[in-house]
Each structure stands twice: as C-alpha cells, then as structure tokens.
C-alpha cells in the first residue's frame, strides 16, 4: 500500500532558545527549518500564542526537502525568568494543518520581590507583613525611595545586605474595607526598566472554600 504524500515542516531544534541580556527590551532570532515531507506545503497563517512574540517565514510555499528561514521577535518588556512561548503556523496540508514552533527564553532576573503581593483578608488583624527585595544581578542596586498609592498603609524599608537585600514592611491602617494598592520601589539601577519596580498589597474578601481564586 502506498503511503499518502504529506508535508512535514520541522525546525532543526525542538525548542528555539533565546537568551536576552538584562537591558534588552527586544530580542530577535532567525531559525532554520525544512519540509521533511513528500508534498509541497503552503503557509496560510501564523498565529502567536503570546502578544509578546511575532514570527514570520521567508516565503509561503516550501517544496519537499526545501529549507526555509524564519524570523522571530520577542518583546522582553517586564518578563523575567524562563518563558516558553509558541507560534502556530497553519498550512494547507491536512496532515499537518498546524505546525507549532516553540521558543524558550531565559530572561535574567536582576531584582526579585517576594512575595509580589502582600495580602490581608477583610477582618484579619491589621498586622505588619514583610516583602523581601533581593538584587540578584551581578551589580549591586540600592533602593532609593518607596512611595505608596494608598494613604491607608504604613510602610518602611531596611537594608539587610547593602546593595543586595532589603526588607519592606507594610501595615494597613485597617482591614475593614477592600483596598488594592501598590508600592513604587525606586532603585539606583543603571538600566531604566529596573529603576522603578512595583509590589502590590490587598485587603480583600476571603474566597469561600472551593471558590476561585
């Protein structure tokens, strides 16, 4: 029995790795792929699963065995850590109607805020909670100033290890009303996007058991 002809677009590596620098706002890469199948394939559409990633291919139709080159642009923005994103290529071949290209990005994290949100439930004791700010990059960074978007909290910060580790303490004046707010943490980083960081705090209704979130 004869096997039916089909296209088979594949990249040279299963996952395309990207390693932006801390200061990068965007990163671009080119990748090679080829049609391993026995039938020409036409690319109909390219959808990205993330609005941060766009990709294009050098042409629309690839003959059996033909190599192609793709280009991908990733907006690093405020992403950090390892991120996996994909694009979905729709083709005219029912045997491979969708070809998924996966990208993995290792975005250096040079400032870590944990926890990112300090949370109290309505009616909780209005006690102090602490968030830890760690400068994880190679260069030391200092917190220069913190401001709050709400007046109904008290806050302070102290240096644990100069240029490396800080503790930010937040205390709500009351937990009797819903409140969502943020602390604007300013640093002396030379990289503009790290000069202002945000951490959040909330006083909110406790979800009923089993209820989202």
């Amino acid at each position, binding site marked *: 029995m004869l096997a039916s002809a089909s296209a088979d677009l594949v990249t040279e590596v299963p996952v395309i790795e990207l390693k932006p620098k801390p200061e990068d706002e965007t990163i671009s890469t080119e990748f090679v792929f080829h049609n391993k199948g026995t039938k020409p394939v036409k690319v109909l559409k390219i*959808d990205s*699963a993330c*609005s*941060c990633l766009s990709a294009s291919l050098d042409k629309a139709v690839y003959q059996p065995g033909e190599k192609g080159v793709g280009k991908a642009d990733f907006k690093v*923005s405020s992403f950090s850590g390892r991120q996996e994103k994909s694009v979905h290529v729709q083709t005219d071949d029912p045997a491979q109607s969708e070809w998924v290209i996966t990208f993995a990005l290792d975005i250096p994290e040079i400032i870590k805020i944990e926890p990112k949100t300090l949370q109290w439930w309505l009616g909780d004791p209005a006690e102090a909670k602490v968030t830890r700010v760690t400068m994880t990059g190679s260069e030391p960074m200092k917190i220069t100033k913190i401001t709050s978007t709400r007046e109904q909290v008290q806050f302070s910060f102290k240096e644990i290890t100069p240029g490396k580790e800080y503790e930010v303490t937040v205390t709500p004046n009351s937990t009797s009303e819903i409140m969502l707010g943020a602390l604007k943490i300013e640093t002396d980083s030379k990289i503009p996007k790290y000069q202002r960081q945000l951490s*959040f705090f*909330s006083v909110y209704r406790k979800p009923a058991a089993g209820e989202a979130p």
Partner: protein
Amino acid sequence: MKQALLQAVIITLLAAAVAAAALQLHPRAPALHAIKEPLKADEVGLKEIQARWQGDVIWLDARPRDQFDAGHIPSARLLNEQEFEAQLLEMLDTLQAATKPIIIYCGGQKCEASRHVREKLLTMVPVENCFILKGGWPAWKAAQQP
C-alpha cells in the same frame, strides 16, 4: 417519487460540497473544532455573558497595544503581558471598586495571553468572578456582524 428523492439527494450533496469548499477556501472560515469545544472552567461565551450579566461586565484586553488601538470592545481596558504591572497599577481603583464580573480576551482561539493575564491578575489581586472570553476578539467581532 423516486426521481424527486434522487433530485433531493443530489441537491443536498451539492449544497454540502459547496459549504465544504467555502469552509476550506474562505479566508475567515471559522475553526469548527474550536467552536465545538466545551467551555473550560475559566471561560465564558458571549451568550453566557449576556444571559448571566446582561453584558454588564468589565472588559480587559490582553492583546498588544497596537491591536488594542486598532479596535477593541467598547470600554475595555488594556492589560497585557508586556506592560502588566504598569497597566495593573493604572486600574487598581477600578478593580477595588469592581462589583461586576471581569472578562479578559485576547486575539482568538490560539491565543493564550488572556489565560496568562488572568493567572497573573489573580495571584496579585484576588478579584472575584474573573473569566476568559471563549473565542476572544474574533468571536466578539463576529457577533457584531449583521
């Protein structure tokens, strides 16, 4: 009688063939597999939004800014992965006062941005009744067609 039946079968087959061809060739043919997929726990459809809340919800658009600028659901606010924290900061007042459900949408069935934005939002701000619009912006646009 037999001939009439035969003609009916032929007409039906021809209509099905034309419909199948249109589905294959039309540049904006619907993804039928996506339409048939049942709603996930975090999803709502436009009909449900209308039925449950009469359309009175807070819309969050998880697409890139340029796509948002090109067109969005009326009254939607931009909250995407790229500028998440800065945009969240701008809408804290809205979220604090929110009593309506929050519906997040992105560019379509293949788009995962609305789900990622929802996950991030809920870890930072524990808002209630937060859902993803099934089908995203294309579903909303299609529903506006006469």
